């Protein structure tokens, strides 16, 4: 069995009911499974929600996570995204404060390089929106922490779907 810790993903179809999110997240906390991120939203069928779960675990634990999810009455389907070709992105907002002209110019350059959008602009602050892979978002946060004095960050967790021909994560 593979004991190596690595990032793994699950796409989960669940009943869109009260308490389901709590049940799923409770499984992770109750059994001490690592939960890197979890996103959830309603699907084209309003009775079904879909979650994208990212966990850092070894293979054995991951197998157990999938089994435990599968046995829940509210879980409709568990899809292992770890080795599938998927399209998976995360939204990230970075607000930069205390910007002078120099910083603002730099921010426009960053936006252009990373394909980010400048979604808001003030006297001495700017707000950038990135939609890209979580790994790239990690890099952006690191970069901007080094470059600017005062930043504020919020990110949404990865959302993924099986790719057709263009995989990216």
């Amino acid at each position, binding site marked *: 069995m593979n004991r190596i810790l690595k990032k793994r993903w699950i796409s989960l179809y*669940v*009943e869109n009911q*009260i308490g389901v999110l*709590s049940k799923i997240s409770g*499984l992770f906390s109750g059994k001490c499974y690592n939960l890197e991120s979890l996103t959830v939203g309603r699907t084209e069928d309003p009775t079904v929600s879909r979650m994208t779960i990212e966990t850092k675990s070894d293979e054995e634990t991951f197998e157990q996570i999938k089994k435990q999810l599968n046995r829940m009455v509210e879980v*409709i389907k568990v899809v292992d995204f770890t080795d599938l070709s998927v399209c998976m992105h995360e939204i990230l907002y970075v607000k930069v404060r205390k910007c002078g002209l120099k910083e603002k110019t730099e921010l426009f350059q960053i936006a252009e390089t990373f394909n980010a959008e400048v979604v808001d602009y003030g006297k001495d602050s700017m707000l950038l929106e990135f939609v890209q892979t979580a790994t790239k978002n990690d890099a952006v946060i690191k970069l901007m922490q080094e470059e600017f004095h005062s930043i504020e960050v919020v990110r949404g967790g990865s959302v993924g779907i099986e790719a057709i021909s263009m995989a990216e994560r």
Partner: protein
Amino acid sequence: MRKITGNKLLVKALKEEGVDTLFGYPGACTIDISDELYKQGDIRIILPRHEQALVHEADAYARSTGKVGVCLVTSGPGATNLVTGLATANYDSVPLVCFTGQVARHLIGNDAFQEVDIVGITRSITKYGVTVHNREELGRIIKEAFYIARSGKPGPVLVDLPKDVMAELGSPEYPQEVNIRGYKPNKTVHIGQLKRAVKLLAHAKKPLFLAGGGVIIAGANEVFTKLVEKTKVPVITTVMGRGAIPTDHPYYVANLGMHGAYAANMAVEECDVLFSIGTRFNDRITGKLHAFAPNAKIVHIDIDTASISRNIHVDIPIVADAKEAIEKMLEYAEANETEEWMQQIEGWKKEHPLQMKKKDGTMQPQDIIECINHCFDEAIIVTDVGQHQMFTAQYAQITEKKRLLMSGGLGTMGYGFPGGIGAKLGNPDKPVIVISGDGGMQMNIQEFATAVLEELPIIVCVLNNTYLGMVRQWQKLFYGKRYSMTNLLAGAALRRGDEKLPEYTPDFVKLAESYGAKGIRVTQKEDIEAAFSRAKKETKVPTLIEFIIDPEELVYPMIKPGGTLQEMLMDC
């Protein structure tokens, strides 16, 4: 169509589900349901004296009858008192449907009187839990609750009923069909896997069956015994699996695990194929994991995929109901050459027989259990948790007409006595014997009122050694005899250092009598049988038999928690 209230629909649903007995304790949020039950009058209502005992009673009723146990309690404290019992049932896969009252919907979240989020509280200890938010969902939810509780790996289901939903008028229809898209219990066996497993078994030199509680839950005892006779493969059991094959059967070895017999544990160590059915390889049976069954290929049949390859690596996993799988195996299995292997096991049995060291004349737990063995041809034995439970698991003969019930997984003290009540309510014609300790007995002793008023002639054995004996055993063996928190005579007198400690309290015999039950105290071996004969004659009242036991009696053999077989402690 005439509309009816939710309360009416609930009672109708219970009848359609074949519920004949309901364990209930009333309150403000369920008073309308109580009223409806009163008016319709067809369901026998048992009123225990505490909700914790209530849920244990429903649990043992379910275990001993195979029906779903049904509980009805009020919101808030009524509901929270179920928690231990739900966890107990969940751990041992017992089908329960528990209805809890809830405050009206507009009050939920307001910290209303007797409001708790019971579905949230019990989420990790139930198979499924749901609050009914709309009257029109009520019928479907109840139907699903019963289906989920009894199908697949059985378990407790909690249905939370807001008072206003239950008062609302709605459809009188109770659905006949269930369709839950996320819940499709496995009803088939993978024949390819099964054939591989059978082949592995056939080629083994030292094959061994390990039967767990799953065999008993599936009602597979009879077919399993046939399979054992056909294959000639010896059997060991977990504590919960005891009775999967009659314990006097020539192919039965013993229980394995922490207090398992030497022969059973040696057999695990030596076997080359361990064929396990319906067990989750709990730490109490495996001990140190890397040293468990070191020479064996392991086959594991279980209804729950999540139980397979969780604790130990399994070579051939088979997800199936035990009975289905065993019946299929009977078609393919062949006789194995096991004579030599059986002889080796017999040798271990002789080397270290399962037997308490005889001390002259003193009454030992083994004597009591053995007396039960020969005094009763038929019985349901229900234990509490502790030393007496392990003594029972070691020495009780469980044959076709006998059953053993206990809280095996969670190890819930206080289960035994209410468990006996539930078992007797479900099996009025069978003798029911509770075996408890003086500690566990006091955790639900109020149930004497229930037992007496329901006229249940159960026999309640209390093995009184004035200590919380199992913890004391650990303290004696591993904690330098520092008997912290285990002495049931402790209190102000012991703290003061008085030379003479007070008399044991309560006086169990007088206590039983004060409830209108019979009480007998037995202090010597010679009186054991007479006490049981007297108790057997009672037809309407329970009898408590208090056995005065030496606190120095320990459960042997014992493998230290997390230890290996080489570290097995024997009684010498």
